[in-house]
């Protein structure tokens, strides 16, 4: 027989003002199974907790109900106290008579009746509570970082510097991401390559970092502390161990006119290539779609000239399995497609601005490549159409961003600043040129940011026009830009030589597919969701997975780096323990009842339900039943409500407990 102790808290006067706590204690004291009931001014205070502990020991209590504030407030406190007194913490429940009663009702009689019923309900529930063991799982102290942009690089270096192995997986042939493409960076105008490449080299040389480039995540299994990740390493056609990075192959390759994606397709590369000279690793890859050997079976020049014999046309994709305990997702962003309406996307393009049709209408990233000293024009601002220097240049901000009618309502955050930067770089390079900017607002919060923006107007003579562009068309070799200046209330028309569109920052294409493999959630734009917008900004709701950089939302470099270091710190917190403790609210299968329909497996969003074979002594298969992996189960209970034979139960929320509560009412 249970000996239940009930403790009613006054919460100063927060509860006792409307609830007659003494009467509640008296009433519930009469319930069968309750052997002790009392009220106290502050249950959560030290004396309150001592009262609880003392009563457990003296009265030999077996189950506890604390009627006080919300369990979201103090459940942990009281469960700890109960544990200290020698009871299993899960034999203690809280009855919420503050947030759900005394604070929302004024009538003392009504509130007292309701409080008595709430406590009665919890008394019936706690009778059915079972001892639950704390679940511990071991932690594999290795980490996976997905994406080798500045976010992934920073997180990988931080974790590796703490002495833990990191597996860094990058989809492209080189790490670096978008930052490697940038020319100079706001707000200080330091050269992106100069601050980026040393970090890339650090990654390559770090004894604790294992780098997989030209690779993708194929499959993620397991759970916090214990993930199994299958990585697909695509065939480079060059043996990384043999290649010395001399680059002879690239000088001899006859296919020289392939648009280089790294240069936003305005520069050209060969079929065997590294995307940019400072690439890490410096091992070329053969682009099989454009290689003569793969297309016709002839050529093979690179193989002939390669001294160490590294070129391997037969190389195959490889699947590699790595065990890790934590995952940092740092897959970054992509830019809004302005050519046309992207297929299968709710987002409308900006075909009306002629991008893709008028060669001298480019996007911001293309401008970065033009302005980059190591870019296709050697840092000169030249028109893609005829190589002439543009003397009048128009920048248009908020292309795609903050345009609900186009499908995106958010602000891309970096465009105001990089457009200001572009006007400066332009002015530094084309002294007699004039830059115009069409903008809605200038959003420049951040250290030294507004000063930077002002400098573009006050010192670098950019003309800012508040308003949007209504029309844009080619006229001879000019581009006519028509818009309105809403500050002055006049129509403006500019004959420009070049137009730069500040296109919206969007998640990577296919970001949702990776999220589905990882079991993390994403918002309606496919940016990955953090567990809590304010208090848990780098953790995913899925335990053991962390976010860094622009994959979570538009970000500039300083913010990206901060978040990456924060994610690394979270990984280190996890790795500081050998074993993980977690709440034992997990589902369990009653094998005798399970009919093996696996309806539970279908509804479990975490992949926690596995198939388990039951065999007799001779090894004959009797049946296959469901098995819930307690390390993976998140404890939602969807499987239980789904199971047609009622064979799976969520500890802490069993049918017995729920029915007991309903019956108490």
């Amino acid at each position, binding site marked *: 027989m249970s000996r239940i102790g009930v403790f009613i808290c006054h919460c100063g006067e927060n509860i006792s003002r409307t609830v007659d706590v003494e009467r509640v204690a008296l009433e519930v004291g009469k319930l069968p199974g309750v052997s002790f009931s009392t009220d106290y001014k502050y249950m959560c205070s030290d004396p309150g907790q001592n009262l609880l502990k003392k009563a457990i020991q003296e009265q030999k209590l077996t189950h506890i109900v604390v009627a006080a504030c919300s369990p979201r407030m103090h459940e942990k406190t009281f469960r700890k106290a109960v544990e200290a007194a020698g009871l299993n913490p899960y034999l203690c429940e809280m009855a919420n008579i503050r947030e759900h009663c005394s604070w929302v009702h004024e009538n003392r009689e009504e509130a007292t009746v309701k409080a008595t*019923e709430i406590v009665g309900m919890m008394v019936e529930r706690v009778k059915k509570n079972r001892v639950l063991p704390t679940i511990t799982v071991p932690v594999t102290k290795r980490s996976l970082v997905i994406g080798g942009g500045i976010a992934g690089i920073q997180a990988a270096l931080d974790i590796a510097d703490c002495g833990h192995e990191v597996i860094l997986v990058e989809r492209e042939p080189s790490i670096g991401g978008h930052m490697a493409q940038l020319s100079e960076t706001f707000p200080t105008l330091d050269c992106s390559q100069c601050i980026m490449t040393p970090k890339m080299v650090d990654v390559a040389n770090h004894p604790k970092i294992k780098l997989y480039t030209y690779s993708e995540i194929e499959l993620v299994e397991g759970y916090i502390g214990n993930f199994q990740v299958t990585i697909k390493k695509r065939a480079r056609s060059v043996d990384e161990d043999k290649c010395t990075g001399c680059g002879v192959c690239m000088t001899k390759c006859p296919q020289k006119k392939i648009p280089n994606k790294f240069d936003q397709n305005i520069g050209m590369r060969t079929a065997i290539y590294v995307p940019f000279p400072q690439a890490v690793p410096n091992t070329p890859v053969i682009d099989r779609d454009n290689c003569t050997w793969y297309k016709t079976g002839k050529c093979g020049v690179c193989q002939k000239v390669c001294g160490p014999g590294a070129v391997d046309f037969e190389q195959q994709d490889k699947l590699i399995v790595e065990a890790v305990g934590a995952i940092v997702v740092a897959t970054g962003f992509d830019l809004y497609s302005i050519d046309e309406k992207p297929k299968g996307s709710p987002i409308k393009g900006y075909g009306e601005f002629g991008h893709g049709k008028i060669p001298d209408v480019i996007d911001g990233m293309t401008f970065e490549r033009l302005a980059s000293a190591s870019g296709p024009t050697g840092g000169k601002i030249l028109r893609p159409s005829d190589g002439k220097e543009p003397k009048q240049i128009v920048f248009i901000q908020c292309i795609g961003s903050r345009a609900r009618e186009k499908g995106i309502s958010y602000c891309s955050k970096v465009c105001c600043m990089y457009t200001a930067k572009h006007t400066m770089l332009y002015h530094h390079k084309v002294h007699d040129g004039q830059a115009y900017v069409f903008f809605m607002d200038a959003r420049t919060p951040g250290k030294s940011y507004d000063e930077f923006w002002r400098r573009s107007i006050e010192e670098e003579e950019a003309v800012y026009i508040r308003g949007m562009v209504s029309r844009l068309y080619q006229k001879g070799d000019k581009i006519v830009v028509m818009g309105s200046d809403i500050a002055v209330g006049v129509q403006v028309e500019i004959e420009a030589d070049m137009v730069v569109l500040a296109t919206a920052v969007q998640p990577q294409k296919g970001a949702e597919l990776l999220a589905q493999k990882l079991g993390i959630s994403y918002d309606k734009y496919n940016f990955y969701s953090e567990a809590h917008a304010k208090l848990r900004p780098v953790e995913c709701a899925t335990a053991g997975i962390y976010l860094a950089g622009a994959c979570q939302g538009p970000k500039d470099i300083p913010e990206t780096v901060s978040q990456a270091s924060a994610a690394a710190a979270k990984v280190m917190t996890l790795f500081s323990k050998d074993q993980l403790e977690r709440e034992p609210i997990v589902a369990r299968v009653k094998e005798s009842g399970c009919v093996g329909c696996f309806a539970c497996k279908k509804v479990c969003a975490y992949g926690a339900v596995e198939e388990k074979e039951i065999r007799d002594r001779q090894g004959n298969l009797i049946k296959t039943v469901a098995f819930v992996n307690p390390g993976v189960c998140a404890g939602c209970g969807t499987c239980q409500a789904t199971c047609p034979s009622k064979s799976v139960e969520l500890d802490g*929320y069993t049918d017995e407990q729920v029915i007991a509560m*309903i019956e108490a009412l």
Partner: protein
Amino acid sequence: MKHTAPTHDFEPKIIAFVCTWCTYAGADLAGTSRMQYPSNVRVLKFPCTGRIDPVFILKAFQQGADGVLVSGCHPGDCHYIAGNFHARRRFAVFRKLLEFIGVDLKRLQFSWVSAAEGGKWVEVVTDLTVKVRAMGPMTEFKELAMEEQWSGAINTPELQEAYNAI
């Protein structure tokens, strides 16, 4: 079946099944903001609306609830990724069943209340209480509960008709 005429001195019993992450937290917020609402509601907390078995709703009606509220996170905001979608699908089917067995669907309310929507919680609870108060007590299931025990004490014309049809 007899229906009690709506009366104003009748106070309905409302049972709310809510998820802990959104609606329970929303109800807490209503409390910390000291909003006021009728005291008729009793809240049962679940990790997720995905855990709420339709049987609980039947059981609640059987135990004398006059109205039942099921509330969780907004679609897309589920703490457990998709539990509320499974719940929504399940309850869409379940409503049809309830309707078929003759429960007035106005007694069963589904809603999304997020952790930030203390005001919406107050609104939902108040509306349901007012609505059910006007409808009067729920009698159908209490009778069925006894019928389940084969007491033989009840014989409504509807039941008689059902027997005759077999």
